[in-house]
């Protein structure tokens, strides 16, 4: 165990070897890039119910957002707080109905390597494809908990991006929770806590599908949502974090739909 420098957290070893490997990787463009894990795009179940739900649920999300927009502008905290369980329920429905049952080989949620890696819900799950439904519910609930556990980190990230530090905590935190439930929850459902799969997703290596498309769309949308805030138009809807939430919902729905249809299976 090499000594770790407290400030830079770097080991005292010279990083020659790693640099060389990187240089080589950059030099020969064909060299495989670590991590070697490849993910297969998530395929939505082919049952009629699933196919209906995959289109109906985003529409429902959009309608919900549109309907609550006035309330959101008027009182962001209470609107976000009341909407959160509803959105979570919609997402759970989506996961259970549309996303491939965790562990099933159909569609290959986690890709080729998931057979070796246990995921949340796997312990209580018999490894058979037909018994998907109850497992899926349990998995989705567990994924929901994981998403909510991650939201403090999203909250911290929002602070770093310039969100109010000491004021508006409830606003920011609820916004982070919405981001987690929308964009992260389906990925937790599909990948569980498989670190290497998350590393691929995090480094934009995953192929586009409804889950990854939703994440990308949601994050980019929320990022773009910050754009109108400084404008001096003095509109009610410029209030924190209404625009972020707008961008998040718009981006998420767009990313999920486009990722599942037009650009499905493509990767960066």
């Amino acid at each position: 165990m090499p000594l770790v420098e407290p400030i830079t957290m770097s080991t005292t070893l010279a990083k020659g070897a790693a640099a060389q490997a990187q240089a080589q990787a950059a030099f020969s463009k064909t060299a495989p890039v670590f991590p070697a894990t490849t993910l297969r795009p998530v395929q939505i179940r082919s049952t009629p119910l699933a196919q209906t739900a995959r289109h109906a649920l985003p529409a429902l999300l959009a309608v919900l957002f549109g309907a609550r927009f006035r309330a959101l502008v008027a009182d962001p905290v209470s609107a976000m707080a009341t909407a959160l369980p509803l959105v979570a329920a919609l997402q759970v429905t989506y996961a259970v109905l549309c996303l491939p049952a965790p562990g099933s080989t159909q569609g290959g949620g986690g890709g080729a390597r998931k057979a070796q890696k246990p995921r949340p819900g796997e312990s209580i799950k018999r490894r058979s494809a037909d018994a998907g439904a109850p497992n899926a519910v349990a998995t989705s609930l567990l994924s929901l908990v994981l998403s909510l556990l991650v939201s403090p980190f999203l909250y911290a990230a929002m602070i770093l991006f310039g969100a109010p530090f000491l004021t508006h905590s409830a606003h920011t935190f609820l916004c982070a929770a919405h981001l987690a439930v929308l964009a992260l929850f389906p990925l937790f459902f599909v990948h569980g806590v498989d670190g290497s799969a998350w590393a691929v997703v995090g480094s934009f290596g995953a192929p586009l599908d409804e889950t990854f498309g939703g994440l990308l769309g949601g994050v980019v949308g929320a990022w773009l949502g910050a754009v109108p805030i400084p404008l001096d138009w003095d509109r009610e809807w410029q209030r924190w974090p209404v625009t972020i939430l707008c961008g998040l919902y718009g981006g998420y729905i767009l990313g999920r739909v486009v990722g599942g249809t037009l650009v499905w299976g493509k990767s960066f």
Partner: protein
Amino acid sequence: MPPPKPPPKNAAAPLPDYKTIAAQWAAAKRAKEVADADRLRKGSSSTSDDATAAAAAAKSDITQEQERMTARERTRARLESGRRRGYQSRWAWTAAFWAWLLCVHAVGIAYFTSGFLLTRLVLEEKSVCAAPPAALGGAVGEGVDGDGGLLPAWPGKGTMEGGCWHPRTFDRAVVVVIDALRYDFAVPVEDDEAFHNAFPFLWETAVREPNRAFLRPFIADPPTTTLQRLKGLTTGTLPTFVDLGSSFSGTAIDEDNLLMQFKDAGKKIVHLGDDTWEALFPGYFEGNLSRAYDSFNVWDLHTVDNGVIEHIFPAMEKRNDWDVLIGHCLGVDHAGHRYGPNHPEMTKKLRQMDGFIRDLADTMDDKTVLIVMGDHGMDSKGDHGGESEDEVEAALWMYSPKGIFGRTKPEYATPPATAKTRPVNQIDLVPTLAMLMGIPIPFNNLGRPIEEAFAGAAGNSWANLAAAERTAAAGIKRYQSSYFTARGIEQTSGPGSPNELWNRAESLISKGKKQDWEAIFSAFAAYQEENLQICKGLWARFDLKNMAIGIAVMALGVIALLVYISKGVDDDAIDDEELDLAEKSLELQGVKPDASETPSDSLERRLISAALLGATPGFLGGVISSFVSGAGDWYRGSGIAALTSIGAVLVSMYELQETITNIFPRTAWGWMAVVFTVSQSIGFASNSYTIWEDSILLFFITTFGFVSALSALKIPSKADRYLAIYHSVVFALLGRVASFSKLCREEQMPYCTSTYYASSTTSTSAPWQLIIPFLVSVILPSILKAYLQPTRSYEGLAPAWIGYVFRTGLFMAALYWVLDAADNGNWIPGLPDKTLKNISVYTAQMVLGLALVAGTTAFVWAPPCVSIVTSASPSEPTRAQVAILGYANAHGARYLLLPLNLLAACILLSKPMGAGALGLMAWQILALLEILDLNNLTTSPIGPVMLAVLGTFHFFKTGHQAVLSTIQWDAAFIPLFTIRYPWSPLILAAAAVPLLVLWKAGPRRRGVLEAVSRALGVFVAYFAVESLATMAWAGHLRRHLMLYRVFGPRFMVAAVVLLVVDVVGIVVSLMGVFGWPE
């Protein structure tokens, strides 16, 4: 600030790093060979009896070997010197290219500026007593000598004694300008602010003796700088934004003005105080009584005021020696600049002024009028220059024991409680004073008489008022027709136009006896008002041709720069030892490397010759065409020369297969750099995005940290991956921490709380902030050490310099700020006056000497931060093993010393809060270097662009805003007592550019110069694009309400920053890699 460059003749003296290493390596090798030979000899002597022979043989072997080696050394030295010459010539061409680019930027900015900064035609005409603009009197219908005037003829009409254009009221005038006397300083306000209720005399007299005194708000026309204000106050016209011709060289006013009229009338003028008057009116003042004082030293609160007070009372005794006495006190303004308004010093200053004016008023007689006024106000920090309400609202008070002042309405008896009610324009003083003193109104005047001065003690002399108003209006009309003729513009005469208003006013004057004076007065006042509005619009007249040329030069310059930086680089970035060896052995065999091996030599060289070739016809063409056309704008040659020169360079680059399409990035990181730069540039079209620029930059910084943390997940080595994530998080986190240092601009209110100073109405630091520089001096060197140690680069000079010298410098800078605070706050009452000030100045000078003089010397002579360690090899204990510590970052670690020296100087020159921000910035730069290195992004444009974003971000975090009044003037007072404005964070960022290339690049890194020049290119391109964008937007939005508040200042900041970055790039960054090994 720029390090004295190592002169070329010395270039050989400090051994370049690689040579030091090579020499040490060779020495170690020789030592090893000797040891080997010894071992051989020992081994043989024990067994054989011809040991001596063997020893002799071994010895001769060694001699031969040594001779061979010396011969090789010599060849090597020859080769190296050849290489160095080659390198230096390439360096010179590269520097020439950058100098050319600097010229292009300077020409573009100068052109745009000359068209953008408003111009006003100065008319030569002067008013003369004998030629009044309108008929004077006797009054209409009065019979014999009725000549169409409104007043009955008065004795001495048309002469200086009786009054040229209006009956004269006073023989003498005493004008006291209290610089930056804001209106609310002079009226009672119910609060405990230090600047309120300390100067009650003006209000008291105006209330107690309304016939003897009145007080009114006095609105300045921006720009609210003293020089421009004095022009307005004496000529009665609107000075344009920056009068290029006047503020740079000769400042003397040659337009018709009050003082010129006084002088021509044979009146004697005495001046005391601010020497700006002497510059504006040279030779106007009576030498024996006048005293001018230096206005430049903003930290000196008392010299000017004491001088004025000391000399004004004796002058009052000799009142036959002068007719006009001008006193200009600067203490209030300087107190504002130094401490901000809310400071006990400000209270003291205002009380002193109160007493002074009280005493002065006592010396007045019936023939003298006393005028006290502020030339502008001050903002909440005590600064001025812009056009915010606090800056334009000054106070005007007139006093005379004669008791002729009146109010036309009873409710006007009390002076207005705020400056929003019944304000007068500053130019109104001109006709008022001229008519009170009986001299002609200056020709260019646009103001109107002030009501109180002509309304009569009873407030009902409407005839007098109407006559005064009409005379002033007629003067304006006369000026207007001359101006329009001179410019060749038609005057409009539609409804609502000044012409129509004038005719309507004239038609009100009835031929009969009974006049409706009040209506006539209002009609002429309406004419004056409308006319003033038109002039304000008219003088917002931009020279679109020059602006277009400036924008074109800048735009083409940006394209040329983009093409230049888009040339391929990835091929020279790898250190390939084999290639190097093969090349060296080829050279040893005498094979000349063919010309194509040094492509950039020919590139920069070609570009420069193309630039010169292109510039010549353009310059000649421009000069000749202007000569032929006789327009006299021969300087247009430089603009056309710049255009043709860039054109030639572009063609030349195109010939070298540098197609335009190359400028588009090929990676996601490249696109990120483009998005950051372009989106911000587009944002400058909006006042909101310009106002909130600091938050937007934080957003970008965090975005970069966020994306780089995600991208780090791809790094194969686990340790490196976590390291990269860690540095990304640190990078973003430090940006957020730095964002707590804020100096809000007015437009950010109320969503922003300033933390840069102790409170929102002062410019001194809070005591707790004094701790920050000490923390920086304790923590920052340790952080630097931590960043150097992983590559074992904390060797050589580094421990001594960073651990002791740099730390001492930072500590002394912290000490300086404590001394300064002690001096300002008078913490040690017993000390003689200047003791602390002197000590603190010496401390500051020592820090600067340490950082800049000693630091640069140390940098030039510093060996690389490596150590050669010879130890026993573990496998073969008798063999020596040589290890070079710090090899992996030999150059980066050494070059780091140069920005560090600048950092120490910059930290001294920033307020304590700024020192913290700069320390954070240094840490962020190091984190950025690690991120780029770990993600293999050293050649990506994102590196320089992030550095530029960091520099701009910290520009805002060190207490600046893109507003004229937030310029940190006193930064320059620290060491030298002269004004200089350090753009610390940007200088630091520019100096750190080579680090992007050199950090963790081993000594064998090739193409350093090209890579540094390219990184600098990207860095400068960011600022060039910003400057182009702000320029284009300022030009496009030239009629926008916020032009002078938001867009104009942002353009000026961007332009200056671009030039600063260009110069620092050449002087520091390129100079820092002069004499680099190749």
